[in-house]
């Protein structure tokens, strides 16, 4: 649906220029929710603006729905933009227009009659669950309501793509979730392709199918959300995952000699984590029974991403040395990640 090829964007002339996006090539499949994550200044907002040419890339080509936007005249580009909706962090609603007026704005000049426009606006407002606020002005709405109106407005011309630039970053966690679920629902109901720009891994985890991680203007890692979570390669990706997982807490517990992480001789602390989608066996109890070991779970952080569990467990294992070895081999064979964090076994 969206093909970005060798996109570069440089701001400013001369030696003070900034290369916001460097040679990015991305392919976004139709009907998917695609996340682009990065810390602020990574170039993700510039990159998403290259998709509808709000920023025209210095180099590279942009193809959306088989149409090369980078080669269009400004009039053709305006027509193409109507097929690409966009929502923003600060909603960007027009304060002098009511909710109805805001959603009707992009329908002006679309050839629809006044009556048809009203009909369309009302059905859009119903779609985003805000029909009752039709006559309100943006200043009378909460953040979440404003974003719903912005979504309705972005969908007015039946776009095939919806670009979301930090759409939930100004919202509280509960509202964020509601908006994310709305985006997901629209994606499922209408088959619209959604591109989500965010600096929150939780957003990616919640709704995205695929994700690209950006750093210093480049895409450093890209893949299915589950596999990125299970096997992050780049340090920046690991940083992001750490922000949504509690598993690294064990390092702190050990550092401060917490009583819950005290080992007796012969015991060890292991982190067990999912690396594949298909693990559904009751591994802990199986290991415990099969190898006659005690597993004392210190804590655990497991979530469901793309309908598969992700995360893991930190546990103290105690038992016979050889059995522990065997158990770990068994787990690895079952495609579970095993990492020994602290070891109090006496070396023989």
């Amino acid at each position, binding site marked *: 649906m969206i093909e970005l090829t060798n996109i570069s964007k440089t701001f400013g002339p001369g030696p003070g220029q900034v290369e916001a996006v460097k040679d990015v090539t991305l392919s976004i499949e139709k009907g998917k929710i695609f996340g682009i994550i990065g810390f602020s200044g990574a170039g993700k907002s510039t990159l998403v603006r290259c998709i509808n040419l709000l920023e025209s890339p210095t180099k590279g080509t942009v193809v959306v729905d088989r149409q090369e936007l980078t080669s269009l005249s400004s009039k053709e580009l305006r027509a193409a933009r109507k097929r690409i909706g966009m929502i*923003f962090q600060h909603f960007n609603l027009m304060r002098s227009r009511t909710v109805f007026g805001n959603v009707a704005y992009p329908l002006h000049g679309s050839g629809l009659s006044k009556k048809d426009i009203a009909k369309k606006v009302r059905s859009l407002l119903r779609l985003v669950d805000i029909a009752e606020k039709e006559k309100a*002005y943006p200043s009378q709405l909460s953040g979440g309501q404003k974003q719903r109106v912005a979504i309705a407005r972005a969908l007015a011309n039946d776009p095939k793509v919806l670009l979301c630039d930090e759409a939930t970053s100004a919202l509280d966690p509960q509202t964020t979730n509601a908006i994310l679920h709305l985006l997901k629902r629209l994606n499922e109901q209408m088959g619209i392709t959604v591109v989500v720009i965010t600096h929150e891994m939780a957003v990616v985890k919640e709704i995205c199918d695929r994700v690209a991680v950006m750093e210093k203007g480049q895409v450093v890692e890209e893949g299915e959300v589950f596999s990125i979570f299970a096997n992050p390669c780049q340090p920046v990706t690991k940083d992001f995952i750490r922000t949504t997982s509690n598993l690294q807490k064990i390092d702190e517990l050990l550092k401060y000699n917490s009583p819950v992480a005290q080992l007796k001789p012969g015991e060890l602390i292991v982190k067990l984590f999912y690396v594949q989608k298909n693990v559904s066996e009751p591994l802990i109890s199986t290991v415990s029974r099969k190898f006659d070991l005690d597993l004392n779970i210190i804590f655990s952080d497991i979530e469901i991403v793309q309908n598969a569990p992700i995360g893991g467990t930190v546990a103290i294992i105690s038992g016979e040395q050889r059995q522990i070895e065997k158990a770990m081999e068994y787990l690895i064979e079952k495609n579970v990640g095993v990492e020994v964090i602290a070891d109090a076994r006496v070396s023989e």
Partner: protein
Amino acid sequence: MQEFLNNIIPNLMGKLPTFYQSIMDTLIMAGWSGAISFVLGLVLGLAIIVTKPGGILQNNVLFQVLDKIINFFRSIPFIILLTGVMPLSRLIMGTAIGVEGAIVPLVFGTVPFFSRQIESALAEIDHGLIEAALSMGSSPLEIIFRVYLKESIAGIARGTTITAISLLGLTAMAGVVGAGGLGDFAIRYGHDRNMTDVTYVTIIVLVLTVSAIQLLGNYVAKKNTH
């Protein structure tokens, strides 16, 4: 009543026809030059906003030229401008004196100020709104009318109020080119012939006019703020 007025403002009562004519002259001068300045200033302010770096019709040459012209005329004190544009007045209006002769300098004195007012009212518009309009496929003309102007009605009303009041002040000086008006009236009789009651009544009329303009401006601004 007549008696009473004759007592407290004797000089003015003796000059009533001139007084009324002065009010009319002021209104005509302010009205015409105000209407012309409103249109020109609005166009100029918009042109500055859309051509400036990062604007929707970015054009550095045009922007620099407009910016410098505005600064040039803003730096000329009005009393000098009055005589400075006389040749132009003669060319456009056929005369450089009287009410007609005052309109050209009043426009030159007001447009630069008003276009800066417009510029700052339009600059209040969040760039995000422009970006949103662009993302919806709006053309530059649509953005000018349906976003910039529509969203800044309150700001424009405030700028217009300030400009109208300062224009009223400028008309007082137009007496220099023989344009008449309230300012000229007050100077000629109130000051030169020491008829203080003329001065005071003129002040009262001006204060009432300014208050009315301000009230109207505030009303329009409030009506358009949501």
